[in-house]
């Protein structure tokens, strides 16, 4: 078995440099690679291009990198929860490329799967398609969208093993599996690193071949963005 286990977040982020392009999993604050983000803040790398569905909130997730102005460009589908983000974007300090959520997922998957580009109907006829090639198939119009190219992908899983196999929980799965193997180096952080052989081979969401480095995160805050509950009758 090929082992992907590294000693911790320091070893996992070895080679990260300013100016790199990063993919980061998560939807809102759910399933984000908290430990890797904290380390990116500590490393003080800057001029980063971040591909991530959202941009965190002011004081958590990618918001932490935005506060320190480490991000040059964001590629996201929705960034509505972050005041500092909005300020940097409107002032022109931050370059922002907004793309449809399904396009984001599939441009990751294309990189993972060795497809150079895909045709999606999303965004046809809108400013998202401006300057892009469009094409008709069976009477419907599609936009050609290219696979992402990234240096690092940071994903967060529930459980994993030293072979790099990953299992996700609930909707914390989201973009994480699609980003595995979609960058030169995929770093997976997990809540629990379990002994090899304890994960059912039928029930592995991401086979270890898509992961280069794996470590168990020290702590997970797992902050809830919108706590909605009902009261018991």
């Amino acid at each position, binding site marked *: 078995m090929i082992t992907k286990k590294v000693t911790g977040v320091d070893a996992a982020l070895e080679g990260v440099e300013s100016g790199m392009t990063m993919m980061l999993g998560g*939807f809102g*604050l759910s399933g984000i690679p908290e430990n890797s983000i904290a380390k990116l803040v500590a490393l003080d790398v800057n001029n980063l291009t971040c591909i991530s569905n959202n941009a965190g909130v002011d004081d958590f997730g990618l918001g932490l990198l935005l506060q320190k102005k480490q991000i040059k460009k964001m590629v996201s589908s929705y960034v509505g929860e972050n005041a500092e983000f909005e300020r940097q974007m409107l002032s022109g300090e931050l370059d922002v490329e907004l793309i*449809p959520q399904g396009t984001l997922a599939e441009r990751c998957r294309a990189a993972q799967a060795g497809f150079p580009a895909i045709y999606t109907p999303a*965004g046809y006829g809108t400013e998202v398609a401006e300057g892009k090639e469009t094409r008709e198939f069976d009477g419907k119009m599609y936009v050609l969208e290219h696979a992402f190219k990234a240096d690092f992908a940071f994903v967060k899983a529930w459980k994993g093993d030293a072979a790099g196999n990953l299992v996700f929980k609930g909707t914390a799965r989201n973009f994480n599996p699609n980003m595995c193997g979609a960058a030169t180096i995929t770093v997976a952080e997990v809540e629990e690193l379990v002994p090899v052989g304890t994960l059912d081979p039928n029930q592995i969401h991401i086979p270890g071949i898509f992961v280069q480095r794996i470590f168990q995160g020290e702590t997970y805050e797992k902050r809830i963005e919108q706590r909605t509950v009902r009261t018991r009758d």
Partner: protein
Amino acid sequence: MALDKNQIAQRIAREVQDGYYVNLGIGIPTLVANYVREDIDVEFQSENGVLGMGPFPYDGEEDADIINAGKQTITTLPGASFFDSATSFSMIRGKHVDLTILGAMEVAENGDIANWKIPGKMVKGMGGAMDLVASAENIIVAMMHTNRAGESKLLKKCSLPLTGVGCVKKIVSNLAVLEVTAAGFKLLERAPGVSVEEIQAATEGALIVDGDIPEMKF
């Protein structure tokens, strides 16, 4: 009298049919789940990766790992499943979701919709909306008929950046139910006590009034 948000949701719920997989957008659409008839089988999909959403969790049972696309904590019902984002949009793009209900800032008489950006002012992003409107064969828009200044949001042509072209099929506003046809907005139903004239006055785009227009039923 014009409908409130809950009444718009209640009227839209009547469009939900037995056996439908439904994607609900943020805002009024989320409320639709509260009004769907209990004698039909419907499953709610959320594009962040869940099918078979249930009600909000009981206080203390919320889980940061189980949320909807509005980032709200949710529960799941028996038969539910979780999946990644690419699979979620396979459901949407592949036309496996039967009905999409979403909000809009503007709709044009040709079915164009704008709901993601106000240049220079508000740029939250399109999230999954562009995928949803580009793929769904059955899109209902939940919206206010006019903005706060009283200006129509049912237009000849959208003024804001588009989310999708020629895709809206039906609109349920606080004033009316309308179908988008080749000739424009066809008035199907009036909100209780709202006249055709009031609807006409609030509609900038072509309004087609064909015969008597009944009041909505809930």
